[in-house]
């Protein structure tokens, strides 16, 4: 059954050094605030998992929280590279970062296998690519009926799955809508889950394309408005596209990055504090 708690309590109780953790979100509903809190609490040796690691993973990597990344596309969408990620992979700054990379289809298959309680999933993929050469986690199986060779990837079982959603109700059920990505699978693949919601409501108004996670599969709910900033929560906020461009030169320079993280993350205590620390032009006009 769902627990309700503050963000700092939720991270403290659920995310431990060495855990395999996904903060998922496919452009939409990315749990930035949870990443900031993991940085504040100084977690180390995390295996970070995500299809599309973006700025918040750049921050976690740059701040030394991660020793491994499992992913399929690492970039600052529309704006450029993740320079902290690149520094880790290219130059072991701030330390070595092991990587295991897949295709999106492979990662989605891995999440779905884990949500299904299967040890692996199959797809028609990876064939003829060098991805197969650089990981032991893509193998091939033969169809027992046709003999066709198909790629097999292991289930992506998580210690902790963290997502954002628009709403929880007072019973701890969670609802999200819009682009729902692999949010459901992230919760269902995880031993422990944390869901940051825009608001807690008395009763849901059922929503087109709504995904409801019942309270008996949800771990901890945190009310955290704008917890996805600079990503967005459909019908609550707009994506802060400017922030992604703004991040590029900060990320590029490690000293500037560290100063920024100090001022905006380490020196603030909550997501509200983080948002208040930013230049108002980055934040304003993102509320729907």
């Amino acid at each position, binding site marked *: 059954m769902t627990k309700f708690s503050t963000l700092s309590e939720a991270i403290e109780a659920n995310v431990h050094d060495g855990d395999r953790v996904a903060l998922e979100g*496919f*452009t*939409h509903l990315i749990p930035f605030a949870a990443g900031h809190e993991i940085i504040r609490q100084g977690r180390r040796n995390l295996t970070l998992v995500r*299809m*599309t690691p973006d700025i918040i993973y750049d921050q976690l990597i740059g701040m030394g929280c991660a020793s491994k990344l499992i*992913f*399929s*596309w*690492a*970039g600052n*969408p*529309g704006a450029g*590279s993740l320079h902290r*990620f*690149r520094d880790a*992979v*290219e130059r072991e700054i701030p330390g070595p970062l092991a990587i295991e*990379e*897949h*295709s*999106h*289809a492979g990662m*989605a*298959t891995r*999440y*779905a296998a884990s949500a299904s309680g299967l040890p692996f999933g199959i*797809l*028609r*993929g*990876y*064939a*003829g*690519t*060098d*991805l197969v050469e*650089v990981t032991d986690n893509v193998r091939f199986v033969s169809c027992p009926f046709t003999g*066709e*060779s198909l790629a097999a990837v292991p289930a992506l079982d998580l210690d902790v799955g963290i997502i954002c959603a628009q709403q929880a109700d007072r019973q701890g059920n969670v609802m999200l809508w*819009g*682009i*729902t*990505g*692999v949010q*459901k*699978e992230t919760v269902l693949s995880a031993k422990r889950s944390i869901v940051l919601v825009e608001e807690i409501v008395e009763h849901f108004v059922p929503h087109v*394309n709504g995904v409801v996670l019942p309270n008996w599969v949800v771990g901890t709910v945190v009310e955290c408005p704008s917890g996805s900033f600079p990503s*967005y929560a*459909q019908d609550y906020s*707009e*994506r802060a*596209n400017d922030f*992604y461009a703004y991040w590029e030169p900060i990320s590029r320079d490690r000293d500037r990055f560290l100063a920024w993280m100090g001022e905006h993350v380490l020196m603030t205590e909550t997501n509200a504090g983080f948002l208040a620390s930013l230049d108002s032009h980055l934040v304003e006009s993102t509320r729907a």
Partner: protein
Amino acid sequence: MPSDVVQDVTWTSDEMMAVAAARELSDGTVCFVGIGLPSTAANLARATHAPHVVLIYESGCIGAKPDRIPPSIGDGVLSVSADAVVGVPEIFAYWLQAGRIDVGFLGAAQVDRWGNINTTVVGNYQSPAVRLPGAGGAPEIAASCDRVIITLRHSARGLVEKIDFITSLGHGDGSGVRERLGLPGRGPQAIITDLGVLRYDDSQHQFLLSEVHPGVGVDDVLAATGWPLLVADSLHETPAPTTSELSALRSFTGA
């Protein structure tokens, strides 16, 4: 195709590239679209000659009809305007893998004469000179779409003799590897750059220079290509962007 060509309008080579890419899509084509130039080209096609082109974004949006070029593949304008929004596992399994997509657009950091694509690393994988974003949806887009269109700016650093990493398989070494692997799609058919268009030639088993954009010389293209690029017998000049193409494009990009 373009009827109202006017040569006295100026346009950039990036605009020419977007227009050339858009023209590859006939009406009703079902198109798997990534962000950046592919999204621009597909939306340009929809705004001009192909109003019923179907745009599918890997974020799960099927039949998206954005009224502006979305800055990301998961933009709210995509889900709100889509015919259907499905989860990411479904978009890859039921829609892409099942062979329901006609055209996939892919970008490339490096591409070779067989249309094999690298978006993973420049240099050695274990200690790369430049670490690139990685695969994303590309390997299975390259495998399963009926045909693939590659877009990138033309340079000898991008169109190379040998790519450093095969992120997405094109035609291998031209010896029929797609057939041997049983891949459902026909693979890359066009490489569209800011200088011209290369098309895959099934008899010569490699990409040939097929079109040069207005104002570009064949020698310019050959000099900017990292392998000895063959020129097709049918080589011709790309028709210049029309005023309607340019105005539609510029209304998206705010240029």
